[in-house]
């Protein structure tokens, strides 16, 4: 049968409006027709192209830039391109991880949007054969004064908890920031880290012809079908339900799906497996077939549906959650089916792999789509969009930034800022201990989770400082990578690799594309210098409303390995009488600092530069001390600067500290609140000090005695006293108080 006979669109079917509603421009549409051998697509095919060639699936604006990121290294088992990245953690084990955005759905419906974001990223990880071991979430909300913010914070946090707690994966870390640029575009970036056996990793490739394609999990509904409201209304007789339905998460079903998949994966029935994420059935089948170099034919009559009269278009584009597609070894269907039935899940053979190289979908006896696979998967346009780099800003001299009236008041004020106050209100709503391996709970630099049943642990963190990226995309991108590296190092972990979530505005604006390009180049520079490659990631563009773009936010998720869980560090002061040491160079950099932004009210100058050579040297030194068992209490200096870091260590231990400004010629507020990079504070036994200093000096690493731990307050050279109780009150109360005032 010639596909042209059955597949030609009705005369009036594909209007320019319908093409536009599918997010394809004129050139892209022409490319679609060309891919089909010169004919026009029908509506179903247009829908398939629109999702496969969307920014989300095809990375058409970002691909040329992403290619600049280093993705290899001896530790890398699988870099970007699969569902998640994989790194070797020794003993035949691997860490599998990825971060992904669910920004827009979370703005529309914060609870379900965030919940399904968590569900989606976990499927990316367990589809590769890994059991999820830890979740993280990087969140950005609008200004606290904006009337939507509270509602969004509350919904997103309970949605993340609602999903992760139920499925029983600990949520151990993340970030929360507030800035008015996110008023209309919040960011919800979810990360999952899983553990797998190296010889039991599963990939998406569907090799072999004549193999059964199997659908498992939940039934398909009309969830999250974007594209054409108008076009889909045409075949939806229920006129009051035109709005694309929000995806609702079902963590219980996901838990069953996780256990069922892992049970099946213990055997050898699976050839390829892929979760149904964005663009559900379409992208999962296209990607599996393309990677395996085969064709695929789906019989949509066999797809388990939960709603009546679903069309081919709807089934192919539905984003219903908690579903997976697998290609099995022929003859193994019955055994597999038993497992899924035991867990109460749908199991249906819905297609077969073919040698045609085409994606074919049949429904009710008709061919609804017949498209060359290669074109769908690989022929999306690739844009090298015009970009302009932001202007370099001057480095602010410390003396130009006014001193506070009172140093101690300034500290209290900083510690209670929305961007710096305690996130306890958030993480206490997350089960961060389930699975019994969280040895470093939220609140420290990176969370530490044991590799179950071993002496090893993984350290995990997410970081980015968007105001730095906005001021200098290159330095900001560098800094984000370096900060994760530093956070991992501060626990004693050897950083292994990162995942990223690139959240930016409209890439068709050259200045936004400039931010993207700059951030990528900065990230690449840091990754290269630190031998810390990118193994997975995600891009979220068009985060803007009425021309107001978000701050450029390349969120970085870092994973590191602690070989001996007994040799790790916490971010608390160790003991009364400990000596505090500062490792790293002090320059008193106040440009783009929180002190400058929130206490002086200015956002000026260049962000703190990151010296990657010093970063590497200082970090390796600190990690060496932890690994040797010489130091067990370390915190890095980041947002807010030195005194803030000391305060955090003091509150964590309920032990105060008297610190000294040292001998450098800098104003006190620059020493205390400057955000110089590459620094760590160590709390050490008095009798270790000489040895550590000598060893640092022999390596030309800047180190100085910062002070002495003890008492219940903080002081600077015996003055400017701040009681820990007052500090704690300031630090702990902002978020709960904010959230309790409706």
């Amino acid at each position, binding site marked *: 049968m010639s596909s042209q006979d059955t597949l030609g669109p009705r005369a009036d079917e594909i209007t320019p409006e319908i093409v536009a509603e599918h997010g394809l421009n004129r050139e892209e549409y022409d490319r679609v027709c060309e891919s089909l051998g010169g004919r026009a697509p029908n509506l179903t095919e247009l829908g398939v192209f629109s999702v496969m060639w969307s920014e989300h699936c095809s990375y058409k604006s970002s691909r040329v830039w992403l290619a600049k990121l280093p993705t290899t290294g001896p530790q890398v088992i699988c870099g970007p391109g699969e569902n998640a990245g994989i790194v070797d953690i020794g003993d035949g084990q691997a860490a599998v991880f990825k971060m992904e955005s669910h920004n827009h759905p979370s703005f529309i419906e914060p609870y379900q949007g965030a919940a399904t974001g968590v569900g989606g990223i976990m499927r990316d990880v367990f589809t590769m054969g890994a059991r999820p071991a830890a979740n993280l979430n990087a969140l950005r909300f609008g200004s606290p004064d904006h009337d939507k913010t509270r509602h969004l914070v509350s919904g997103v946090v309970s949605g993340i908890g609602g999903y992760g707690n139920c499925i029983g994966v600990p949520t151990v870390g993340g970030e929360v920031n507030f800035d008015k640029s996110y008023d209309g575009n919040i960011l919800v970036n979810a990360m999952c880290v899983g553990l797998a056996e190296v010889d039991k990793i599963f990939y998406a490739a569907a090799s072999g012809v004549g193999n059964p394609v199997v659908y498992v999990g939940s039934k398909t*509904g009309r*969830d999250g079908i974007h594209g054409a409201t108008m076009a889909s209304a045409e075949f939806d007789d229920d006129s009051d339900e035109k709005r694309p*339905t929000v*995806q*609702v998460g*079902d963590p219980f079903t996901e838990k069953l799906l996780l256990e069922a998949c892992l049970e099946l994966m213990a055997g050898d029935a699976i050839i390829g497996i892929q979760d149904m994420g964005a663009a559900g059935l379409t992208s999962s089948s296209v990607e599996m077939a393309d990677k395996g170099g085969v064709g695929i034919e789906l019989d949509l009559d066999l797809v388990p549906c*939960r709603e009546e009269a679903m069309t081919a278009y709807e089934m192919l584009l539905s984003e219903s959650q908690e579903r997976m597609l697998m290609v099995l070894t022929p003859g193994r269907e019955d055994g597999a089916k038993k497992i899924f039935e035991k867990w109460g899940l749908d199991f249906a053979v819905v297609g077969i792999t073919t040698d045609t190289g085409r994606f074919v979908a049949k429904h009710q006896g008709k061919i609804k789509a017949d498209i060359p696979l290669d074109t769908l998967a690989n022929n999306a346009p690739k844009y090298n969009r015009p970009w302009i780099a932001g202007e370099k800003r001057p480095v602010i001299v410390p003396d130009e930034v006014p001193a506070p009236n009172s140093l101690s008041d300034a500290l209290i004020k900083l510690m209670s800022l929305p961007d710096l106050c305690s996130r306890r209100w958030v993480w206490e709503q997350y089960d961060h201990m389930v699975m019994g391996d969280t040895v470093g709970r939220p609140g420290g630099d990176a969370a530490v989770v044991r590799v179950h049943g071993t002496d090893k642990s993984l350290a995990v963190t997410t970081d980015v400082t968007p105001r730095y990226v906005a001021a200098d995309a290159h330095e900001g991108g560098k800094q984000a990578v370096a900060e994760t590296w530093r956070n991992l190092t501060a626990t004693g972990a050897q950083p292994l690799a990162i995942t990223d979530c690139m959240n930016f505005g409209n890439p068709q604006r050259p200045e936004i594309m400039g931010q993207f390009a700059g951030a990528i180049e900065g990230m690449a520079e840091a990754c290269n210098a630190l031998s810390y490659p990118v193994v997975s990631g995600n891009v979220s563009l068009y985060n803007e409303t009425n021309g107001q773009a978000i701050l450029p936010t390349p969120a970085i998720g870092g994973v590191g390995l602690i070989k001996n869980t007994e040799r790790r560090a916490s971010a608390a002061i160790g003991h009364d009488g400990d000596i505090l040491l500062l490792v790293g160079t002090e320059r008193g950099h106040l440009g783009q600092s929180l002190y400058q932004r929130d206490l002086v009210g200015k956002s000026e100058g260049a962000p703190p530069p990151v010296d990657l050579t010093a970063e590497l040297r200082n970090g390796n030194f600190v990690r060496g001390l932890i690994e040797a068992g010489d130091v067990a209490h370390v915190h890095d200096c980041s947002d807010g600067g030195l005194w803030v870091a000391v305060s955090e260590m003091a509150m964590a231990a309920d032990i105060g500290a008297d610190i000294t400004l040292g001998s450098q010629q800098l104003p006190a507020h620059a020493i205390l609140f400057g955000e110089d990079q590459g620094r760590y504070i160590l709390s050490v036994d008095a009798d270790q000090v000489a040895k550590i200093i000598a060893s640092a000096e022999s390596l030309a690493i800047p180190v100085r005695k910062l002070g002495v731990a003890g008492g219940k307050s903080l002081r600077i050279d015996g003055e400017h006293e701040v009681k820990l109780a007052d500090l704690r009150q300031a630090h702990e109360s902002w978020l709960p108080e904010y959230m309790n005032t409706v």
Partner: protein
Amino acid sequence: MDKNMKAHVKITLKKGVLDPQGKAIHQALGSLGFDGIDQVRQGKYIEIDLAETDESKARAAIEKMCEKLLANMVIENYAIELEQT
């Protein structure tokens, strides 16, 4: 006579929105041996005692409460019944 009203508010999921709770209840009823069930949907039922005698004012107030707080209009519908108490 009392001068109060009681509002009975039913909040239900819109058609087509997945109802994981209803689905799980359906399955559980099935394994308890209850057959012949086609579908189960779970919603909320909220009773509000109001110091208001005017029915149309009461209705307007409850509608506002539903839109603002009680129902999540992205995925839920609501229905109000009023009763003099």
